[in-house]
């Protein structure tokens, strides 16, 4: 005879297996039925077993709907209490899923949103139902104005074909043949980040300055080895500095109080402007070309005062 510590109820295991499956999202009949196939003598008993457990869940208060051969859990035992503000954010996230161009990504994201909604407590569900579109969070006018273009650029990045981008800069039209990378945001503006093999540089083209984009039939295969910039900072700047996502630092100060920062993939124009702001508390170490560019910017600025 088994000791109490070793005994368990098969029914408990089965109901939890079933709940786990349903909690992960819509579940196919063929998958759910497998839970009951081991211990039944005949195939006809399996659907009876399934119904028995579905009834148990329903009696317990869990609402399960069936559409063709798919079961869907409408509420959960484990609930999330989300406030009105939280639910506004949930709506905002759901609407932001529009920017996802890859259908697999979209499905993965929607399944997460569905998982959260399934777990909402009754109070939260009620609040959600009574939240009108008017109460939803509005995105900036800039974003709404360029949303379609941003979505188009997202598609270009996903398709990863070479691009010829024409854009305006200081009233002049420029063209660059490049590999699309991603959409980045600096302050509140969106940029199409591209890699140019010729200069081995990343360029952030402001979305609102793009005149045209021509997609070429070539898939971008070339390896993007862009230049890494190493610079040093000191004093209060070093103390308060927050590393960017694309930067790294070992946190050690040298004997003169300088902290070394390694920067990858930042648009050189943006980086130059940023490092100029840091005045003599910042010094570029490498590469030579960027260091010279920095020196040249300082010299050219000084010339303005001659």
């Amino acid at each position, binding site marked *: 005879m088994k000791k109490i510590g070793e005994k368990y109820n098969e029914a408990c*295991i089965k109901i939890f297996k079933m709940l786990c499956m349903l909690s992960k999202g819509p579940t196919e009949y063929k998958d759910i039925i497998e839970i009951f196939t081991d211990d039944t003598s005949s195939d006809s008993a399996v659907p009876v077993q399934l119904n028995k457990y579905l009834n*148990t869940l329903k009696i317990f208060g869990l609402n399960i709907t069936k559409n063709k051969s798919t079961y869907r859990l409408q509420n959960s*035992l484990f609930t999330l209490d989300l406030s009105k503000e939280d639910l506004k954010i949930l709506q*905002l996230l759901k609407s932001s899923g529009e920017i996802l161009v890859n259908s697999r990504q979209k499905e993965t*994201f929607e399944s997460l949103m569905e998982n959260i909604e399934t777990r909402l407590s009754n109070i939260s569900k009620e609040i959600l139902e009574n939240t009108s579109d008017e109460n939803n*969070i509005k995105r900036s006018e800039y974003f709404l104005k360029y949303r379609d273009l941003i979505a188009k650029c997202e598609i270009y990045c996903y398709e990863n074909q070479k691009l010829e981008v024409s854009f305006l800069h200081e009233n002049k039209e420029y063209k660059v043949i490049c590999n699309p990378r991603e959409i980045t945001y600096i302050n509140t503006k969106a940029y199409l980040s591209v890699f140019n093999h010729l200069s081995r540089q990343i360029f952030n083209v402001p979305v609102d300055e793009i005149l045209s984009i021509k997609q070429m039939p070539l898939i971008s295969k070339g390896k993007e080895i862009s230049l890494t910039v190493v610079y040093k900072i000191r004093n209060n700047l070093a103390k308060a500095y927050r590393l960017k996502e694309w930067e790294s630092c070992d946190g050690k100060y040298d004997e003169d109080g300088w902290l070394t920062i390694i920067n990858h993939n930042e648009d050189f124009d943006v980086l130059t402007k940023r490092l100029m*702001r840091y*005045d003599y508390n910042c010094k570029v170490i490498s590469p030579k070309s960027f260091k010279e560019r920095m020196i040249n910017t300082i010299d050219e600025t000084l010339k303005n005062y001659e």
Partner: protein
Amino acid sequence: MKEFIRNNKITYNLMSFTAFKSLIIFSMLLEGPCSYDDIINYFENHEFLREKISIDTIRVYINSLKRAGCNITKTKRVDGGKFVLLSHPLELTINNDQIKIISKIYKTISKTVEIEELILLEKFLRKIGKNTKNNEFRQTLDKISLLSGLDTDLLDELMNCCKSKKQIILKYNSPHSGHTDMEIICDKLGFENGKLYIYGTSLDYSQAVYLLVNRIIKIKEINLNKTKNIKIKEIKVKFELKADIQEVQLKENEKLISIHNNKIILEAKSSNKFALKQRILSFGSQCKVIEPEIFKKEIISTLQKMRAEY
């Protein structure tokens, strides 16, 4: 259960009573820690069950829940000998693909909503993070969040102070002098170079200040008697910019004086010389300070020191 009794569509022999009872124990543990007595009493007083359940039977149910993936511990007898549900398989799971997508969407949203809403987004994601087992989600959030490491309650307080332009005393961790008190009249919260600042007027220095929010320890005091007639020493800087006006995002304190042959003359007014200097330097060779002479000399001197570093 009520529904079952009311519509009478399902009978006991068409449901698993054992599974039903395990769900009851599980939901009791979800509510909070339970002792044997709590469970026995619940079953005895249950509207429809009215059943005496033995300690051994409860133990079998607990074993079964553990086997089903629940992590349950029991407190010592002196602490009430209660079963505690530490984790369970019905928790919200977020896989790594979903984390990547959330991260991508966060980056878009965070730059296109107001700070107040960004705080709400942070609170929401932190709440979701608490309800999921995946540490990767919390780590990614720490990495990408613009408000990472900031206390959202403090942010709410600061936001409210800014809305009603309150005069407050802050406990601030200054890089210069360590922990210090600073009295400011709050104006707004804003991002500059990826970092969150509170903008306002310093009563200590009689000038506009912007303080890094991650250095604010707490709001020490809200001064109800707002100081009036603060004499702020402002400087006015006129500078020339070689740029297309469409491409220049003017700041609140800047105004356009004239445009001539792709050269723009701007005037900036501020009591914060440091901020003005940073702004001027960021334009690089596109920019030349016209006046005042003393500020122009300071810019030249800074540029010379920068050059000397090479």
